[in-house]
């Protein structure tokens, strides 16, 4: 019995060999590096929630021109399993129109032509020509600098550099440490902050999401060592998912940002997006914490599941202290 069952069990070797050969083979095809494309695609968009999301991007949304970049009918998109159906896009178009906006679809055609004069470009299908679009060209033809990516394939850093405000509506299934903008920002910090110096991480205001993906402090901490990163109650923020939720709730209840003032910058470290800077003055408690831990830098951030360069700003502590001294001018 035992021998017979053991032989049957040994058939699992076929599954193991398949697993190993696919793991090695797929890695080889990607140059032995993990790529986002091998993870599940983002979910197809929901016409109702996407319409609300788009309307929320404008103070007055009626009459806004919305350019929808979608594939030609029947054309394959990448990756096919997560693609939004043509019916859903028809519905989105209908909902947008009913809300008073002016949708316009590319249907696989020229993206720049569709985007000309638009207030917002929405990418709904991962069409190769749209994936490789030059953000600077897009910025030139648009009326307002807003893009909404529902596929998660665009590199927000390139759009930021072109002066476009990038929003990501896709739910991403690839791990957050593969985010190219996060890597770009980590490199920027490594080049700016000498090893051994301290960085205090300060959210710009209330933490707006409980998405575990938004814990960008984890990959940054691992990448920036031996620089010293400090966070408000890290024993909760870095712990198990439910404790992290409590950390978000506790921060929002404690309101450490209360009494501080938003600061507009004339120039940013990496991002070109001036209005979206997450900078603010520090509270006395935060200033004291920075002094206690001998930090030289303050890293402001907006707590979001997608890493956008515009949401992050690294500022010398002395500069932040000077803001506090003259805060009425900056408010």
């Amino acid at each position, binding site marked *: 019995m035992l021998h017979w069952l053991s032989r049957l*069990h040994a058939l699992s070797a076929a599954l*193991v*060999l398949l697993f190993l050969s*696919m793991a090695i083979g797929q890695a080889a095809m990607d140059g032995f590096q*993990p790529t986002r494309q091998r993870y599940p695609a983002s979910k197809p968009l929901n016409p109702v929630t996407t319409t609300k999301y788009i309307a929320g991007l404008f103070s007055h949304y009626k009459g806004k021109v919305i350019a929808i970049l979608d594939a030609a009918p029947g054309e394959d998109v990448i990756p096919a399993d997560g693609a939004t159906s043509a019916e859903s896009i028809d519905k989105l178009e209908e909902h947008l129109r009913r809300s008073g906006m002016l949708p316009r679809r590319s249907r696989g055609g020229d993206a720049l032509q569709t985007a000309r004069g638009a207030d917002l470009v929405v990418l709904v299908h991962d069409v190769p020509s749209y994936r490789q679009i030059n953000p600077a060209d897009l910025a030139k033809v648009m009326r307002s600098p807003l893009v909404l990516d529902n596929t998660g394939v665009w590199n927000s850093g390139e759009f930021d550099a072109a002066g476009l405000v990038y929003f990501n509506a896709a739910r991403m299934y690839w791990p957050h440490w593969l985010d190219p903008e996060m890597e770009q920002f980590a490199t920027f910090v490594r080049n700016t902050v000498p*090893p051994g110096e301290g960085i205090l991480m300060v959210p710009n205001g209330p933490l707006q999401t409980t998405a575990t993906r938004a814990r960008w402090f984890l990959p940054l901490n691992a990448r920036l060592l*031996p620089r010293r990163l400090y*966070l408000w109650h*890290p024993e909760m923020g870095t712990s198990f998912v439910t404790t992290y939720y409590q950390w978000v*709730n506790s921060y929002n209840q404690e309101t450490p940002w209360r009494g501080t003032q938003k600061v507009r910058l004339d120039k940013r470290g990496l991002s070109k997006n001036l209005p979206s800077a997450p900078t603010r003055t520090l509270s006395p408690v935060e200033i004291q914490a920075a002094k206690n831990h001998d930090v030289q830098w303050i890293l402001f951030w907006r707590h979001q599941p997608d890493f956008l360069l515009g949401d992050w700003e690294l500022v010398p502590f002395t500069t932040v202290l000077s803001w506090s001294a003259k805060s009425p001018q900056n408010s």
Partner: protein
Amino acid sequence: MTLLTALLYLGLAYCIGRVLLPARTLLARSRWEETALSYLLGTATVVFVTTAGLAVGIPFAVLWWLPLCAGLGCGWRLWRQAESTNTLAASTFSKPLAALLVLLAVGSVAAALALPLNEFDPIYHFGYRGKVLLFDGSATAESIVGMIQADGYGRLVTHPNYPFGIPILEAWTAKLGGWDDRWVQLPLAFWTACMPLVIAFGLRRFGAKAANLGSLVAATTPMLYGSDYLAHGWVDLPRAGLTGEMMLGGGGDLAVATFFATGLALWLRLSSSWRGLTLCGLALAAGAMMKNEGLALAGCTILALLLGQVLPTFRCTLRSLAPVLRLAGVFALLIAPWLLLRAQLPAIDENYTERLNLENVMYYWSAGENPDNSPMGSSGKLKTDPSQERRLDHVLTSFWEECTDWRSWGLLWLLFLCALPVTRQRLANIELRQLCILVLGCATLYFLILLVTPWNYPSLRAKGIPERLLVHLVGVMSLCIGLTASLGQGKGEGEEA
């Protein structure tokens, strides 16, 4: 350079471990068994010595030289006192079995290195610590212990009281060439490849059939490579090795499983000598220095070995218990440095020693999940938990689903059930009694730990629990299965002097 340092480490660890082993004439083993055992014992020694050094405050930069000097010294000694290869025992493997084991071993090493560190635990729990050792040079640096500060602002570290076994190996590899997310995994890439060989070594004394069967069962258990592959259908096919289901690489569970199996294989072969008991204790201590669960497994081991000796007649003498008590003493000595170091680290969560008490077990036996502790509840999106199911039912269901999941376990659990000592002949075999009590005891312990966990159990389940705990038992279960298969047959070769 990091790759070269990693390759150098492999050689040094082999030399150190090889010197620790008794002569081939005293302890029969094949070349491959010897290689695997030497590497594992060498690694266990490196981890033990470095942990001990870190515990008393010696900088890692100084400790880095110890394995180098010791390895070179051992290599020189091996070269001077070269034993004849004629003294090696013949392999028990048939050619097809050997070919399959080689294929799986090479595949597991290649798959482990195919991608750089790319999972949550390897990056944040272990890789981060490795970098701390490399850059800060201490296990008690602020980057580990500075999490909780009076002003509420502290350093970021996940599970600060996790052991340093894997970080030590990674930091050692990165010392000369710098941190490389791929090559720091090289010393960690051999756990799966070594386990079947260690099992063959342990079962050799029970005959070739036992050794072959045990090795085959272990090597073909999918859990040693990855879990739940193709569970979502063919869409999983190209995603092999990408998700949290990957076991190979920079995680700690395979290391625990392999050292646990090594300790028991050594117990089966060498429990009558102090040297054997020391090596056995060293392997168990190394398992505990890879992940905290190793400590619980070692405690279970001592208890199971005692119980196996005493049950079912309750007749025993101090003389018959002496080897187990000696092992307990050796293990206590070898684990002391890690406990000394751990006492200096903050324990912020998962204090199961404190949590596993009768009161909690009784409570969760009938209670459901706390809605405030559920992802929806604690994120403020849901005020009441729609699930009224008791946690006991959740945990029982998940254990059943796990153990019957052929994609992860093949027929391993069924084989183990078939190997239980339910006949008089099997019951008379003391080693089988001990190993079976051990597996059942560890599975029960994990069950109770998950019953009283402070976390939301469905969330833990989604993160690959309990399979990532049960994988620790693969080697011991394979030893049980092989041993049972040998009963009724003649004794094997290589009985120790």
